[in-house]
């Protein structure tokens, strides 16, 4: 593996970790449900980004398909959780009126 590939993996993998930390921070300090959901989705995006980064093996080499499949699964799980949590929120709004 060339140093360029390594550098790319580290750059994108590192930014994935940064996204996780930013999302975690927002999740911990912001109370509204929507902000918490955006935060957790950004966290998830960070983890997915990390997986995509380690799957990368250079511009001319086919990437590792296994992390890609994991991320696709993760995306669908994330949207499912988001939709369910928003339905909880909607129910609470309705009851609050």
């Amino acid at each position, binding site marked *: 593996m060339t140093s360029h590939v390594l550098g790319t993996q580290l750059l994108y993998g590192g930014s994935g*970790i*940064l996204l996780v930390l930013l999302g975690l*921070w927002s999740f911990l300090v912001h109370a509204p449900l929507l902000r918490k959901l955006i935060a957790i989705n950004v966290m998830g995006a960070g983890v997915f980004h990390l997986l995509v980064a380690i799957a990368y093996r250079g511009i001319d080499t*086919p990437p*590792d398909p296994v992390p890609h499949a994991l991320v*696709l699964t993760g995306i669908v799980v994330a949207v499912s959780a988001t939709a369910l949590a928003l339905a909880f929120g*909607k129910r609470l709004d309705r009851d609050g009126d």
Partner: protein
Amino acid sequence: MIRPLEHIVIPSGLIALGGLLGWSLFLAITGETGDRLAEIALARVPDSGVSNPVTSVLLNFRAYDTLLELAVLLTALLGIWSLGAAGPGFQKAASVLEGMVAGFVPLLILSAGYMLWVGAYAPGGAFQAGALLGAAGVMLALAGHRNAGLPSEDRLRPLVALGVFVFAITGVLLAVVGGGFLTYPAGLAKWLILIIETAATLSIGATLAAAYLGGRPAPEHATRESA
């Protein structure tokens, strides 16, 4: 005003965590193990019945993950339904938007079919196709179609269950005929994957659109009133 938890404890904890994670990632990537599963997976793609490596992993090598993933999507929808009925929906759209939607929706459905088919050898597949179908449903809902183009509840239920059902039954039947759970016989893999993906696409599309409505679909008579 300084709140110690929010302004000192959490940020410094996160910075420490970030350092630890970054360091671990550096060591993990630069470590000796190198190649991971990539070579094995790419070498076996020709045996999988499809030539898109990601589809090979999703629908063949790690098909069991995908089965449970579809179950997660179904769980979310059933959970949403248990929390209450859908809201009153959007107002009937203006004729311009209505016209746009009328043009867009068939286009989305066509693209979904295309995406499903090319997923075997090019980027795409059941999830992307299902998402396009879901998007068509969202557009219909935005244009004022109360049930987002979905059928009535007693026909919607089999539709959202279809993907998991075809997947699971295929798995069990393959186990019964002796191959093992979800072990596709050589030669049949391509067709079995296409059947499973088609069922999954329909279910994913219907589930996403139904999830967008945010509650149990309105009963049949109410739909007729609004139409």
